[in-house]
């Protein structure tokens, strides 16, 4: 008492890149907008507050861009030398930046002149960040020191001299106002606690550290240096969790996607790789024109901004959700229609009888179920089906043949209908995956319509086209056989190592046949 079994549609594996949720998500961006900066873009930082402006540090300037503006809406250019690491405060109102001359400057977003000027570093300051309590600034410099500054009275609070080489990257914890991490060219990452005056964790990365990142929870620490991206477990005292080697040049920047599920890394090899933070496998990657120095994502991953060595800033905006077509929607039945009878409370003696759920069938399946074979064939010969999904048409033809009614379904067609069938044959006959089914169908058509040939010029032309196609295909096959023969001769002249006739096919050919039902 089984129900009707729908026709099995033969599926064919799609060649090329595998389509996953990630490829769909990360490909859903518009073509990038290119903005030319004055020098290599060393830092991009998004304001955490709406309207999510972003600060771009390049050469001796800091530009603030609006989300969709191509021109800077504000510029800070009061630097004598190269500026580094312009970073927004959590409330988006203050901006701090280091510079080549060793100064650290604090700006108000609305103002032009620096609010504070922290002097103390003797060499270039490459990294600055606000601590979680918003009132302190951490800076690391090429004089091997890390300093903590107080904003209200612009004083230096602490100095850490634990690194033995340039400090080039750093990151403050988002939760604890006293914790921050710095990475240095001495291959180490150090986590400092402002309460203890010394580093609490120190881990060996193995290469000069270019970028560090703390997870929002503060439990995991990511470092990039050399070709490696390494993940450290802070809660286990800095144990190495995983080491990723997916770039073939130095990794320069790291970023977390807004959901925290994906980690992005940019590298000098001009690629941005996206990792899953659960399995640490690469799920997607982007290519850029030049070596990447900086990378940032906007709130909700709406925008990807990448800064490159050639001074080009590439801005990609997410495609807006496809708007529903504004056609006046047909009035749907009222809500009460749907809940009619559903809210009836079952009484004690009632027997509940559910209406059997209806199985959805495709239109051609409905026709086949009722043995309307010609109608079913007509449906799948609609242009919308033959062009988009020829495998459905072929599967239905195959099914009709299996039922022994293909000749019935093809017979009795007028000029327009038969030319539609012939068009489909002409388009698909030479495809190897469809050929066995369609050759059979073509034979049946020729058998049926042979007596009426010559009555319609349109159909005659199609038959001639089909004939030409078959002849071309035969020639092609002959050529292939000739090539095969030549190759066999070449192989025969080569001496074989083994006396037994064993050979191993490349398994690729069979992989094509494989289809995994998940």
């Amino acid at each position, binding site marked *: *008492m089984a129900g009707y079994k729908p026709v099995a549609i033969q599926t064919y594996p799609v060649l090329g890149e*595998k389509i996953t949720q990630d490829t769909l998500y990360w490909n859903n961006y518009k073509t990038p907008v290119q903005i030319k900066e004055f020098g290599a873009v060393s830092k991009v930082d998004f304001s955490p507050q709406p309207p999510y402006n972003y600060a771009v540090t390049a050469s001796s300037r800091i530009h603030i861009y609006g989300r969709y503006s191509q021109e800077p809406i504000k510029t800070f250019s009061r630097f004598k030398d190269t500026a580094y690491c312009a970073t927004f405060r959590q409330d988006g109102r203050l901006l701090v930046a280091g510079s080549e001359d060793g100064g650290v400057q604090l700006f108000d977003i609305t103002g032009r002149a620096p609010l504070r000027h922290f002097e103390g570093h003797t060499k270039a300051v490459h990294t600055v960040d606000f601590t979680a309590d918003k009132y302190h600034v951490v800076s690391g410099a090429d004089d091997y020191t890390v300093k903590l500054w107080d904003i209200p009275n612009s004083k230096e609070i602490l100095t850490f001299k634990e690194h033995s080489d340039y400090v080039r990257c750093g990151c403050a914890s988002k939760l604890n106002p006293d914790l921050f991490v710095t990475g240095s060219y001495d291959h180490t990452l150090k986590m400092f606690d402002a309460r203890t005056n010394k580093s609490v964790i120190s881990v060996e990365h193995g290469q000069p550290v270019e970028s560090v990142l703390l997870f929002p929870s503060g439990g995991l620490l990511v470092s990039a240096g050399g070709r490696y991206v390494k993940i450290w477990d802070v809660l286990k005292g800095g144990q190495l969790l995983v080491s990723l080697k997916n770039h073939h040049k130095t990794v320069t920047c790291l970023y977390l996607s807004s959901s925290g599920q994906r980690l992005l890394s940019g590298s000098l090899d001009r690629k941005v790789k996206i990792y899953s933070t659960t399995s640490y*496998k690469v799920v997607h990657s982007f290519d850029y024109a030049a070596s990447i120095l900086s990378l940032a994502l906007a709130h909700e991953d709406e925008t990807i901004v990448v800064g490159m060595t050639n001074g080009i800033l590439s801005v990609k905006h997410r495609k807006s959700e496809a708007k529903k077509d504004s056609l006046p929607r047909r009035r749907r039945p009222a809500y009460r229609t749907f809940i009619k009878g559903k809210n009836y409370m079952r009484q004690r003696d009632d027997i509940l009888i559910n209406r059997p759920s209806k199985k959805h069938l495709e239109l051609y399946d409905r026709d086949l179920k009722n043995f309307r074979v010609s109608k079913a064939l007509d449906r799948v010969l609609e242009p919308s089906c033959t062009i988009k999904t020829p495998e459905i048409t072929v599967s239905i033809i195959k099914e009709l043949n*299996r039922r*022994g009614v293909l000749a019935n379904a093809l017979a009795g067609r007028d000029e327009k209908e038969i030319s539609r069938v012939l068009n489909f044959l002409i388009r698909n006959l030479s495809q190897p995956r469809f050929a066995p089914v369609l050759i059979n169908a073509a034979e049946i058509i020729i058998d049926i319509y042979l007596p009426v040939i010559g009555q319609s010029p349109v159909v005659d032309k199609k038959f001639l086209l089909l004939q030409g196609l078959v002849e071309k295909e035969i020639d092609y096959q002959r050529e292939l056989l000739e090539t095969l023969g030549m190759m066999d001769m070449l192989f025969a002249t080569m001496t074989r190592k083994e006396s*037994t006739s064993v050979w*191993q096919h490349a*398994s690729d050919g069979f992989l094509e046949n494989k*289809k995994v*039902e998940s």
Partner: protein
Amino acid sequence: MVEEESVRVVRCGGSELNFRRAVFSADSKYIFCVSGDFVKVHSTATEECVHILQGHRNLVTGIQLNPNNHLQLYSCSFDGTVKLWDYVDGILIKTFVVGLKLHALFTLPSAEDSVFVIINKEKPDVFQLVSVKLPKSSSQEIEAKELSFVLDYINQSPKCIAFGNEGEYVAAVRDFYLSVYFFKKKTTSRFTLSSSRNKKHAKNNFTCVACHPKEDCIATGHKDGKIRLWRNFDDDKKYTYTCLHWHHDMVMDLAFSVTGTSLLSGGRESVLVEWRDATEKNKEFLPRLGATIEHISVSPAGDLFCTSHSDNKIIVIHRNLEASAVIQGLVKDSNIFTGLMVDPRTKALVLNGKPGHLQFYSLQHDKQLYNLDIIQQEYINDYGLIQIELTKAAFGCYGNWLATVEQRQEKETELELQMKLWMYNKKTQGFVLNTKVNMPHEDHITALCFCNAEKFENPTLVTSSKDGHFKVWILTDDSDIYKKAVGWTCDFVGSYHKYQATNCCFSEDGSLLAVSFEEIVTIWDSETWELKCTFCQRAGKIRHLCFGRLTCSKYLLGATENGILCCWNLLSCALEWSAKLNVRVMEPDPNSENIAAISRSSVGSDCKYTPYFDNTSKSLTKIFFLTSLI
């Protein structure tokens, strides 16, 4: 050594349930059906078998309720006895010995102390309906030799006999005749269809008959799909008939409901048709019953119907045409391509079932566990259609994997092959399709076998084909961060001088693979897929291959088409012994060193299969132990 008496045949079941109409008990709680030498009592509510009434020594051919006592059941059999049973307790009450082969049984409430049976006395094709007087006696076994003749030259099928209007007359059909015998008048009238005489290929043969329970009305089914309703048949001249036509093929059975308001009919279409008030317009359908309806019966209480189907199944149907229970026996398809297998997990017998299905049949409980739909396509029941056949199946890895091969060949060059690999899902307790391979080989697949050795963690499957290749398929990890998945891919393709690969077999520990290429056996290392050695006896194509087990694992047995059984020693790579034995089936015992080889004995013309059990270690002395099974 295998002792002769250690082989004993136990009849487990698997008999036909659809041989005769099923019978309901008076309260519709039980349904009775014949099953080989037994009568089975099933509950209509739970489908479970409640009792098996055993006692007949031959096929049971008819069952009827005792009209005088609704808790008793009559049965008749080819062994010449009519037995009376108490079905509530499942005990035999009385045996009436008639002494003739009984083909069918009928009872009538009006004829209290007699039953009607169909016998044939003289010619093999001429059957008579006789009434047997059942003498009253207290003894268990009573002779009942008092026969009185009722009708001659009738069809042997009980479907062609019907008693009407509380036993006033009996109607019988055969070929183009409808004969009616009136018990009171003691006359027989015979009716023919006017059109049937002259036409040579007339297809309106009578196939079945049913009588209205209240009125004088007879319904007959015909080969062309028509149903005729006969009235006024007590008059040879004035009789009339009307015609009902829906079936496009032979009407297999007819039954009136208890009140006579509706008529049920069924046939090859597997649709139960209910004709209300005997009119053509007023009909209801219950479609998609799965197989040809062979019999229809109606419960005496009138609340249930039941249909017996050609796939050995009985469906209990509620009065409002809703199927309520299915009693499924062993499905016997015409071709069992897959052979017999045992599911390692459920220990059920597995073989071809319904078209396109594998059936799992429990031998212990004599019932079907479930059907696995392999082909998953709508089955079109029509003559001359080339169906997709399920040709090969094999279990692997302790029942975790099932491999099946299906094929359809329309013309010589157009072969459609598909191999499917099914994984056992512990949660749903069933097989789930994992991998589908289109055209795994260019030509027919001749054998497939899994490597069942314990040390192989990675499941391995080998298929051999007539295209001259054998392919090794392995399970590979296909998972990514989104889902965990496994799939099968081809790992190695081997061939030997373009000969057809005919058999393949793994050794017990899985280290060696034997593939036979027509007359030659090749041995491959399963680690590296290197050809190790070949054996050739030039004694015909190899039909079966089998490795020895346990202490005999150094031997390889091969049976050829020319009737030679060879045993090779794998250590010395030489023929150990050979014997003349035309082996049909060869199967190793999974628990011992024995290998059962079943051969067709060349003595005499009757097909007698005798199994030889040969213990390879002992068979160095070339001794076979013969036990006759049949």
